[in-house]
């Protein structure tokens, strides 16, 4: 089995995440879709690392994981702030800013 299939899997996961952000309405779910995209990128990095025969990709995945964790914390803080005020995490309800 060639490692290229993992790239295909990564691309599929990335696309699911990308479409998910566009069609879902709950901020938490949106956020999970973004995380899915980041992890798809991690999978691609690790697979390319295997294909290229260099370790760089794995190291990069580490950095991406730490960055993603920092993003989770900030994102959850912001979403919670909104949720506590509005009692809803739907991005459609956040509609004060327009035009």
């Amino acid at each position, binding site marked *: 089995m060639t490692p290229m299939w993992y*790239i295909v899997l*990564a691309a599929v996961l*990335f696309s699911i*995440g*990308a479409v998910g*952000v566009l069609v879902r309405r709950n*901020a938490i779910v*949106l*956020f999970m879709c*973004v995380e899915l*995209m*980041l992890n*798809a*990128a*991690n999978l*691609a*990095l690790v*697979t*390319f*690392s295997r*294909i*290229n025969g*260099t370790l*760089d*990709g794995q190291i*990069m995945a580490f*950095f*991406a994981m730490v*960055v993603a964790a*920092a*993003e989770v914390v*900030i*994102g959850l*803080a*912001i*979403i919670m*702030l*909104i949720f*506590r*005020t509005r009692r809803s995490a739907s*991005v459609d309800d*956040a509609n*004060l*800013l*327009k*035009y």
Partner: protein
Amino acid sequence: MVKLPPMDYAAIMPLLILFGAACLGVLIEAFVPRRARNITQLLFSLAAVIAAMVFVVKRAGNVTAANAITAGGAITIDKAALFLQGSLLVLAFVSLLIFGERTLEQGGAFVAQAAVTVGSEKDKEQAAKSLGSTEVYPLALFSLAGMLLFVAANDLLTMFVALEVFSLPLYLLCALARRKRLLSQEAALKYFLLGAYASAFFLFGVALVYGYAKAVDFASIHTAAAVGAGNITLLITGLGLLAIGLLFKVAAAPFHVWTPDVYQGAPTPVTAFMAACTKAAAFGGLIRVLYVGFDGLGWQFTPVLGAIAALTVMVGAVLAVTQTDLKRLLAYSSVANAGYLLIGVLAGGQLGLQSVLFYLVAYGLTVIAAFALITLVRDADGEATHLSRWAGLGARSPLFAGIFTFLLLAFAGIPLTSGFMAKLSVFGAAVDGGQTWLVIFGVISSIILAFPYLRVVVMMWLSEPGESTPSVSLPGVLTSTALGVGTIATLVLGVAPGLLLDLADKAAAFIR
């Protein structure tokens, strides 16, 4: 033993100073008593920015092709990076002055505890008397340090980390407004979700480029792309995904949708900081990726980016016409300006780079002054940003209305302002670079964009002040300084742009 990468500490000193100062700022937050915090933090961050500036200037004297790349190949401190770092530091210094303003409103523009639920008893209590949050200074320093790293990154991973380091604090800063907290939180949510989305695209682009070039540093990508071996689709797709991430940050259409909401909802000092510094940093990163990393592709992507530039200038200008809120108007104007800058980027060559570098500084200083002025026009609910409220302001306060008129004329690109020189150099470079069709779009967009600016001017001067016309608060020392620096720079760069143009000309060289 592993051989250690060579570290040129003199070159990365500005970065070390800013990151160190941001960490110390967190400690100040933890240990200095509440009342003394604001002044301590403000002076400390300004001192850090000045110290970093000193090292940037010192370094600019003795940078060569041989000593530019350092930190194990992760960072390039070449002349372009130093120019961008220097301008970022200047712009951030001026914005930090507006951050520190406390005379316009008790406690400043920032809420004490963003976690307190809007509308609760505790919220009313903190709105009435509490001091403002001072975490904004370390956050701004972290963000600034990330920007400095972003424009000097020599590989895509460093760039991704720097991108997040400068974005994450900005998401938080957006949520910290003292007035209109719901708007502020909503702006933060939108900025965060779309920003995280864009950075995920960027990361996947990094992965694909790594798959193609077997490395992520710009020299290797350049070589691999120039040779053109292997599956070129990987490289093109990778570049496309990278470009989405970067174009989001520069607010180019169709990735600009966050800009008006975030500019309007965020506290105005933060908006000023974002409009000036984020734009400079993002364009710094974009030109480095295109000129250094993907030059080997032979600029095949010019038509695509050209279409985006044309779309951006038109969308920004046309939508600016329909706006009724000043902050949103300036946001759409900033979208259009991103388009003009993209035209300069696509002009290519020495002239294109020089014009982009000049434009970033000129636009940044003007936009900071404009937002500084917006913080002054207030009523009981805080800033009055609706256009109708500005009617008749010329009679109420001729001085400030005059300054704002001047700034708007600079945005419109009237001669004797920096905006004119900046647009002239960008469009001139584009004609030189054979992108005349983009210049045509740029000029049409400038003409459309002049209309909303002139409407504001006409409203300010030709309407009678009514009952609801807000008063213009007298600014404190800090805001006056920021406003003065921005306005004078707009004038000086319009009348005598030679010095900065020369500097930008010398700086317009990347080292691979």
